[in-house]
């Protein structure tokens, strides 16, 4: 089997195909700390793409309450168990987070799901969830680990839950692509979006079995598998509503919690992101390392990055997002001026922001966070589209507008 470099694991790993990378890669950062679980994202996707017969149990975007919730039921526990069974007690990391961009979180010494597979019947260790597991997508909504009499406090709450927003990760090494015996699943060279060819799919469900995130789903009425299409007509700007400009997906652009920022990042050698410090996603993932991949140990090199919830016990978060969790929470809690500026870009525009610029403003406030004094500056952040044209300009402090008095007509 060919070897590929997985930068999220800081090492080579085996994959079914030789390395091949898109020019640009679909990616997003989700700030878990801000999600209100309104499911607007879920419904935006549902009402756009999966409203038809046979797609009844399909939720390409879903928001689940961790640690008990999961769609399909216990998907992550099951994948973690497969890894643990194939490599008991050795799913560990070495080295230190904060490393270079081809190994930013140190090195994963355990096995990926590709390495745990037998290679004969499966090239990715996996399973197919049953109908029951696909029902009740929001089971255990808002269910906490405990209900203590006293309140809870930071830095780690003793009773906790959090919302995990999920869609296809349009992985760099997609398990679904590797598993399809007839190349009906493919990754687009222009934007890395992973699609199931509905003309070629024969409903074998090898992709459903293989995807650890369970984001390839079977449609029994057409007997084919379908999955999130990354709203490619919006991303490529071919949807008439985009007026030709690369636009964020449906689930991203509707988010009232302003937790989502989606874009396209440039891919260089060995699938490592090209140096692009003015791309807000690059800045958050590689410079600040504040946003982390979901279950990097699965090995697919997923492309939705999460700012971890700062109140959740760290061992749970380290299992979910890898060893970079502690530093990420520290940087999110005490953001740099750049970071605070970038956070304003979340949901400030429907068009994809390809680069940003920070214009420094005056110091406006001093706040105490975790016993540390922090200064807030009213900087202004400007977002540019793919052609370098300004599409958004927003300041850290929301402008205060006093409405002139008027006579109420009632």
């Amino acid at each position, binding site marked *: 089997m060919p070897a590929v470099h997985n930068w999220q694991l800081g090492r080579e790993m085996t994959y079914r195909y030789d390395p091949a990378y898109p020019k640009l890669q679909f990616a997003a950062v989700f700030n878990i700390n801000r999600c209100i679980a309104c499911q607007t994202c879920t419904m935006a996707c549902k*009402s756009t793409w999966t409203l038809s017969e*046979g797609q009844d149990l399909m939720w390409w975007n879903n928001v689940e309450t961790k640690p008990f919730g999961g769609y399909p039921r216990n998907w992550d526990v099951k994948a973690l168990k497969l890894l643990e069974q194939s490599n008991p007690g050795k799913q560990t990391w070495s080295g230190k987070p904060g490393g270079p961009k081809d190994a930013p979180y140190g090195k994963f010494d355990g096995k990926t799901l590709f390495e745990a597979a037998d290679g004969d019947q499966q090239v990715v260790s996996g399973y197919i969830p049953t109908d029951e597991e696909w029902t009740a997508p929001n089971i255990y909504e808002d269910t906490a680990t405990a209900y203590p009499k006293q309140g809870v406090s930071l830095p780690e709450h003793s009773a906790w839950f959090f919302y995990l927003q999920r869609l296809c990760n349009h992985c760099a090494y997609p398990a679904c692509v590797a598993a399809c015996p007839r190349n009906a699943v493919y990754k687009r060279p222009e934007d890395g979006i992973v699609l199931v060819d509905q003309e070629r799919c024969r409903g074998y469900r090898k992709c459903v079995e293989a995807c650890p995130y369970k984001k390839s789903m079977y449609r029994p009425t057409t007997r084919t598998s379908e999955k999130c299409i990354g709203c490619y007509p919006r991303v490529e700007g071919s949807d008439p509503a985009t007026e030709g400009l690369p636009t964020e997906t449906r689930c991203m652009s509707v988010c009232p919690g302003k937790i989502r920022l989606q874009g396209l990042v440039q891919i260089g050698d060995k699938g490592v992101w090209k140096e692009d410090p003015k791309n807000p996603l690059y800045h958050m993932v590689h410079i600040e390392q504040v946003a982390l991949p979901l279950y990097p140990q699965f090995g697919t090199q997923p492309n939705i990055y999460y700012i971890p919830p700062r109140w959740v016990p760290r061992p749970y978060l380290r299992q979910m997002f890898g060893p970079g969790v502690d530093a990420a929470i520290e940087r999110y809690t005490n953001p740099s001026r750049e970071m605070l500026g970038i956070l304003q870009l979340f949901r400030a525009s429907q068009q994809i922001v390809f680069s940003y610029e920070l214009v420094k403003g005056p110091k406006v406030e001093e706040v105490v966070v975790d016993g540390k004094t922090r200064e807030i500056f009213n900087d202004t952040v400007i977002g540019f589209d793919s052609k370098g044209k300004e599409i958004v300009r927003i300041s850290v402090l929301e402008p205060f507008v006093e409405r002139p008095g008027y006579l109420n007509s009632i």
Partner: protein
Amino acid sequence: MKWSKPAVLLVGALVIAGALAGLTGVRTATSQAVTLKAVAVADKPELNPDWATWVKIPSVDVQLTNQAVTYPKGGGTVPAVSLKAVHHENTLYIRASWKDQTENVPSIDMAAFTDAVALEFPGKSAVSVPSFCMGQPGSGVNIWQWKADAQAGAGSAALAKLYPNGYADSSGFPEELTKAALYQPAFGLGNPVARTDAAVQTLVAQAFGTLSAAAAQDATGAGMWRNGEWSVVFTRPFSAADGDQAEFAAGKNTNLAVAVWDGANGDRAGQKNVSQFVTLQLSGELVKAKSEDWGALWFGAILGGVLVVLGLAALGWAGVAGTAKERA
């Protein structure tokens, strides 16, 4: 010569097994050496595994093995398939039957797989005899695949049955819209797996992973599960509309391979039971379908009976000898 007790037991068991095989008429042969003869029949055959004339047509057994050549490997639960063939007015009919204790006709269960069977022939335009492993570039194969779930028409109707109170927003849209490529892409794009009106798909391939729909979907079929056995009849005119498909002619030989999928075993794709190519011989002249060869059967029965007696005697002797030894 002194025989040890285990050796005698083994010989006895083998003799009995052989005799029983003789009695049940199983003809074991390596796949390659098998010839399936398609005789011409005067009456138009029915597309029905129970068509009365089938009992008069001799069968051949083709051994199947697990598919162990390419990913995804699998199968191994169906050891053999029994084949019969006839032709009538330039149309070929092939009947395949195999033992399967479970009837798997999943309707909409996402984790369940269907029972299925496929016949594979060299494509008409093949420049040489193709590999029975899905052909090779330039020498493709033509595959007719029958699936239990497709025959059941599983789909919308099955969905409504399983979830009677289920509701899909699109149900309110006019039929031409919901059946269109936009809402049912696989169906709208003509992917044969999405069809609910045909149990058999006509396919072509030129290597692993290249299986695709033939331009003309002209093979048809019907299957039935009864008492732990599937029986499926396929038919297609000798000539097909497109050149990638197989071509048949009375008096000519061609090749045939079989694959069986056991849904209960999670079989699909390459996870299947496969044969190698066997010879398919289409008889030139019209022959009256012969009744079973009673002479051969009587011979088999008598020989089998004698062998059972011999085997039992051997087992008995071993038992007596053992007891005697213990006493000594």
